[in-house]
């Protein structure tokens, strides 16, 4: 029987009894990447025939029953059950749970921004990120049955701390890109039709997102390419990072690009889609990303990507865009110029993006990856 199972890993999973899977997450809210991954994973597991329940301290706008975290241990009845924790901040409760539970433990790691990025901008963020990253070592020491990273970059945090690579697996996050593809467009706030180059950045305004380099790139574009060049900035500023927001606004003023930055801080799906359609490229100069969902949104929607290949960005983008080893504003400006004027090259980059999205990040690919991960988990019990 053992030999049969080893020889037919792809099939024996089908005949296993369904598992009970508890998913624990720090919070659930619409338009949140971790929430999208949690809900997508829930749906995929249910499609595989498993019983799934969600546990979170708070949830808003989620059409799904969510239980309090304290109920998770009562819900887990058997050592064959599975608990998946979406690790993205410091939280003692899951760490204690993982220490005492007999169920199989899956650590879904979204990464935590290093606190160095927030030094001088927010003491609270520094404390929270320090606390969050301090738990990486403790989770590594627990030897969980599976470490499920959103990217190879994320898993390095655990392999560097001695976790067996055989317990590690990459599964890109579930996402709502297909909803974005089906969405109508709302371009009311993007009514420029003068043919000027447009840069797009999607993501919250935070010190690790490369906002200063992005503003420099816009200034260089205006100097060397077209003085009408604009930046479409989709994303919010956390009130706790107001000091950083002030510094960004000051930099915008110093570069003289105040009238060329369009902030879309409360963009809905339709407006986000219109922004991708209007842009010459998504410019991602972030210095730290655990995965970077906007990259796959751009690839799926046919918007070329220009990116600084930091952290997980290089893996997520792969060869499907213009990836540079530095956030040099001149490289960005020249890349924009090429994409704006060379339609053959632009079409090629778009095709590469479509292909990478379909081959690596399409929902059916992610569901297959999750099925394989659960099969690996199953084998760990054998």
């Amino acid at each position, binding site marked *: 029987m053992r030999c049969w199972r080893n020889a037919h890993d792809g099939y024996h999973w089908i005949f296993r009894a369904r598992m009970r899977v508890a998913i624990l997450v720090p919070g659930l809210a619409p338009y949140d990447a971790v929430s999208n991954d949690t809900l997508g994973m829930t749906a995929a597991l249910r499609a595989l025939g498993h019983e799934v329940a969600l546990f979170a301290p708070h949830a808003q706008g989620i059409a799904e029953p969510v239980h309090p975290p304290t109920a998770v241990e009562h819900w887990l009845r058997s050592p064959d059950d599975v608990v998946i924790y979406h690790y993205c901040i410091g939280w003692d409760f899951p760490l*204690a749970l993982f220490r005492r539970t007999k169920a199989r433990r899956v650590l879904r790691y979204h990464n935590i921004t290093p606190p160095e990025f927030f030094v001088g901008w927010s003491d*609270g963020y520094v*404390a929270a990120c320090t606390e969050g990253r301090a738990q990486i070592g403790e989770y590594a020491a627990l030897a969980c049955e599976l470490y499920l990273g959103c990217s190879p970059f994320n898993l390095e945090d655990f392999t560097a701390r001695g976790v067996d690579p055989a317990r590690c697996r990459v599964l890109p996050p579930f996402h709502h890109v297909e909803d974005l593809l089906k969405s109508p467009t709302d371009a009311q706030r993007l009514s420029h039709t003068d043919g000027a180059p447009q840069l797009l950045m999607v993501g919250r305004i935070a010190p690790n997102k490369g906002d200063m380099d992005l503003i420099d790139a816009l200034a260089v574009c205006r100097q060397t390419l077209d003085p009408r060049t604009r930046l479409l900035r989709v994303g919010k500023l956390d009130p*706790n990072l107001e000091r950083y927001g002030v510094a960004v606004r000051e*930099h915008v003023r*110093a*570069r003289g690009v105040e009238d060329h930055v369009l902030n879309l801080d409360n963009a809905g799906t339709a407006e986000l889609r219109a922004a991708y359609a209007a842009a010459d490229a998504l410019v991602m100069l972030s210095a730290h990303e655990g995965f970077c969902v906007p990259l796959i949104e751009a690839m799926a929607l046919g918007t070329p990507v220009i990116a600084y290949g930091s952290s997980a960005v290089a893996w997520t983008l792969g060869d499907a865009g213009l990836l540079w080893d530095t956030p040099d504003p*001149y490289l960005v400006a020249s890349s924009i110029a090429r994409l704006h004027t060379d339609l053959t090259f632009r*079409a090629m980059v778009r095709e590469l993006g479509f292909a990478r999205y379909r081959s690596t990040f399409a929902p059916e690919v992610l569901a297959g990856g999750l099925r394989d991960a659960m099969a690996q988990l199953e084998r760990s019990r054998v």
Partner: protein
Amino acid sequence: MSAEPSDDYFERVKAEIRAEADAARLRAPLPRKDPPPSDAAERPSRNDGVDRARLDYAIGELTGPHYAAFVENAFRCLLKRAADEPGRDAQVRLLAGGASKAEVLGNLRYSPEGRRIGTRVRGLLPRYALAKLTRVPLVGYAVEWAMTFAGLPMLLRHQRAADTQAAAGLDETRAALAQLTAHLDRQGADQQALGGRLEQVQQDVGSLRVYLEQRAETVEGRARALEIRSDKTETLLRDLPELRHYIHAINHWSVSLQRSFADVESTAAADAERTDALIASMYESPDATAEREARFATWLSLLADRLPENARVLDLGGGDGSWIARLAERGAEVSGFETNRFLAERARLRGLDVANGDPFAALTRYADASVDAITSSSTAIGSGDAIAHWFEHARRVLKPGGWLLFGCAADPRRFGDLLRNRAGAFEPALAGAALNAAGFAVDAAASRALRDAVLAQRA
């Protein structure tokens, strides 16, 4: 358009972009502007309700509020700032998970940030230590059980106090409910009044709708009239291409006609030129020259003595200047006009003042009583009734007592007069009668002595 991925092509484009970026960096360097250092960034307003000067609390001062308000107050008192979202969420989750307030306070107070600030909270340390002790497996459970058991009397007291507080709260709630009911009643009355106003507004809206319908009918009528006018205009516009065609045709005909006239005029001018050349050749013949010389000699003998010294003489149709030359030799100031271009040219070559042009037109331009004599070979007179006009101007131009020598000889230019339908040479007797009738006094004796000419004096 093919967009087949090609690593070589992709890398080549990237190399080109890199080269363009290097060139752009040299061409348009970005002014150095370091982002403002974070510490130098403007601090948020200090009017945030945080008492930064106070660093000493009793634990009871911090445990009054509940849930999120408790956490927010703890951040402000212990970390001297408002709670950030991740930090607040983490502590709220602890409370929701059954942690004591002392544990939350201890977490903040003994965090790296809290230790750096160093706020003193009297009574916190032992409670925090106990809270942490309860987290130790087995031992923690026993300690928590013992503490709970030991605290039962106090718990009972708290329970009774809570009952009392709840009862008081219930009374307050009832009173508030009564106030709310009264308020709702007032709202109901207001709503009724509002309903009355709403009906009035609806009536106004009805009147406005009627007015708008009337206006709409007026506009519709005007639109129909405009449509009819538009149809008429359209009909006219349909005829416009045909009209344009006619105008183009007329224009074409007009241009053709102008070209024909120009051709005719050009041919006539060429013919006149050739005729003048022929006459000039005839004029040179020996017989004509001899006859002319004899005639001029006679004319000069009869006229010269009648002219004052330095007399001013106008000659009309004087030929090649041989007659004018004779007068000039006698001291007269002579101006001549000759229709034949070739003869006029010959006269000018002799140094005489002779212009090529219409003699009669020249006569009409001369001032009144401005010359002492007019001499004419008669070929200078136009056709038809122009002779009377000619005499009239001659009389006007001559000074009182001035002389008119009116030639009637049939010299070679007579040929041109015949061709051009001019009056040409007259019979001397007839010319003399005409001059008498025109206000001149013909010198009969002299006229008889002259050959083919009449000499007359202005009366």
